[in-house]
Every structure is written in C-alpha cells, then in structure tokens.
C-alpha cells in the first residue's frame, strides 16, 4: 500500500484502486509492505496517476528520502518562513512565504520534530 500526500488529504492506494489523477501537495509519501513502513520519501509536489492495471505513476518535481534531511535545518527554515510571512508586504512575498511554511511544516511533522 502507498500513502500519497494529495491536496485533498492523505490518500491510501491499494491494488485495484479506482483510476485516479491526484494532484500532490508537499508531504511524505510512504510505501507500506505487510503492515510495515518500508520507505518514506518527501515529495515537493507533483502528480500521481493511478491506472486501471494497479500501476501508480508518481511524478514529482523533487523527491528525497526522508533520512537525508537535517532536523535542525528544517526547524530553522520554518522559523525563517514564518518570519518572512509576518514581514511580507506584497502578495507575491506573502504567497512565497506561505509556500515555504507549508513545505517546512510538512517536513517537521514528517520528521517528528
């Protein structure tokens, strides 16, 4: 089973799932085998296609195994983005800061810090 971070929430995919096009938001993609978590990737965003033949294609702009992240850097990044959001003046800056908060927030909850 694979759990995808879709924009509508965490989505579990088992063999025989209905064919779906799912838009992904930044989050953790985890592959479960036999009830155990096998691998986890942090996905920046992208798409997942679930085909009728039980094949799922995940296309992400960036996908990194979770153990490559440094928790301290992630915490610092979240603090930076929160600060930038408070200091944002234009819509563009606000949007950029919000995206940063979303990504870092997902990372912190994934890493458990």
């Amino acid at each position: 089973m694979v759990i995808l971070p879709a924009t509508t929430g965490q989505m579990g995919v088992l063999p025989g799932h209905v064919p779906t096009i799912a838009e992904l938001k930044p989050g953790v993609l985890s592959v479960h085998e036999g009830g155990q978590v096998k691998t986890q990737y942090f996905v920046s965003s992208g798409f997942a296609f679930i085909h009728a033949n039980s094949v799922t294609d995940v296309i992400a702009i960036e996908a990194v195994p979770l153990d490559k992240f440094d928790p301290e850097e992630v915490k610092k990044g979240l603090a930076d983005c929160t600060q930038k959001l408070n200091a944002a003046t234009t819509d563009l800056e606000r949007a950029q800061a919000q995206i940063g908060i979303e990504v870092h927030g997902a990372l912190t909850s994934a890493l458990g810090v």
Partner: protein
Amino acid sequence: MASGSARKAGMRLSSLLSGSLASGIKSQTAAASPWSSSTGAAGELGPFGSRFASSQAVRNRMKSVKSIQKITKAMKMVAASKLRGVVSKTEKSRGLWQPFIALLGDHPGVDAKKVSILTVSTDRGLCGGINSTAVKYSKALLKLSSGPDKEVSYIIVGDKARAILQRDSKQSIALTVTETQKISISFTQASMIVDEIVKDLDFDVVRVMYNKFNSVVQFLPTVTTILSPETLIRESESGKLGDLDAYEVEGAEMKSEVLQNLSEFQFASVLYNAFLENACSEQGARMSAMDSSTRNATEMLDKLTLSYNRSRQATITTELIEIISGAAALEASN
C-alpha cells in the same frame, strides 16, 4: 658562384637552366618549357625551377594544417568528456514524461487551429548536421500544419536554428530562447521557459522538435506532441484520448484546473528531456565531426609533407647539378 649570386638576387633559375642543363635534366613534369605554366610541377608548388617562395608557402600551409589538427583533436576530447556528463542525466530524465504518455497517449495526428513548432537546436556550431536536420523537419512540420484559417508559429530554442529560420520565415517566429546551456540545464529552467510561452502564446498544440540521442553516432529527429488543456478536454470528450474520462480527479474542484496543471507539467517535463537529449546529440555530433576533421587534416598534412620533401630534394639536386656542370665546364675550358 654564379648560381649563388643569382640566388641572392632572387632571380628565377629557369633562365639559367634553359641553356646547357635543360637537356640533361630529367624533368618530372612533362612541361614543354620550364616556365610554361605558373602551376608547374604537378600543379602544386609554383613554377618549375623557382626555389624559395613556393617552399615557404607550403611550409606555412603545413604549419596551419598541423595546428588545425591539434585543435580539432582537442575539441573531440572535450566533447567526449561533456557527453559522458550529460548522458546519465538524460537517461534518467526519460522517466519524467513516460507516465504522461501512459495516461494521455500520444496523438501526433490531432487536428488543431493554432499550432506552434518548438525547435530545439544548439547555440554553438561545428556539430555536424543536427541543426540543419532539425530546421528541415521543422519547416516540413510547419507546412503540414498550415492551411486556411490556421495559425502556425515557431518557438525557437538555440542560436543556430534562429539564424537559419530568420532568413526566410521571420514573420512566423513567435519566441526565441538562447543560451540555455550557459548555466546547466535544469527542470527549473525548463519550467520557466514554459511559463513564458504559456503567458505570451495562445496555442492548441505544440510540436517539440529535437534530436533524440540513440548512441554516439546515431541521432533521431523526434517530434513530441503536447496538447493544451482545452484541446485535452475536447479530445477526451470526443473519445479519442483513450479513457481519460474514466479517471477520477482528486485535487481541485474543477477538472479543467487539474488538467491545466497537468498539461503545463507535461510541457515542462518534455522540454527538459528535449533539452538534455539535444545536448547529448550535440556533443556526439561534434565528436564525430571533429574526428573526421582531424583525419582529413592528417591526410592533408601527409600529402603536403610528401610534396614538400619532393620539391626540396629536387631543388637540392638541381643545385648540385649546376655546381657540378659549372665545375666541369671550367675544367673543360682549361
């Protein structure tokens, strides 16, 4: 002595030779008289009998051919090392667009009003025929796609295609992008270019024309078709797009919004892959072009060296004969 002073004066020796010596000398050329044609011996080295001006010319030519040989050899090595760097990146990037084909299928025959042809070419030259091939196919595609009440345009990536297409199709060029390889090729760069295109240009179908890298000696001109979101919806509703309709859409509220993101993402992935494949083809083509150039230079150098040596030896022989016959004449008169 006599020949020495004539040499210093730079006089043509053919006049000195014409007397008693000409009959004794076995000329290599079949010229009727030593100064009959200006091309003289085998058409290469100047008039028969003249010594120094032509040998200097040949020596200069040999020097320049040798340096060309060295330069092209170095260029081949540089291209080989660059190729090694890009090939692995390219092979990995092929997985980016394959899921889109699995989902949407490949529809090169789709009929559309506004067609754009995106030609991917190189910025630098000396890479064989890949740029002219790309332009040739792009022109053919444009012709195929044009017709009454159809709008066709070019989007050009790379200096070389721009130079060729500006000459005769200047009015059809919508956008030009150059210097894509200055900083390395990345997905970010491809998506930025897609942003610009989608902002400026309203298209139904984009046909991306590039050289796919098959092996170091084989490059396949390839066309990838990308449909705009509206065209996607239209084709899927008319049932031609396989079963796109069978897919549930999780994401935004409107299916069209998701399809727009999908189409732009597909465009960026395809463009990223096209840039990489073209870069590989460029390095491979440059390798073979420089290789054949080095081989030609070596051949030319060999031929020049042979004829230079031949002329040098002929000159020395002539001088010797002069001296000897001069001495013999002196002795005979005594």
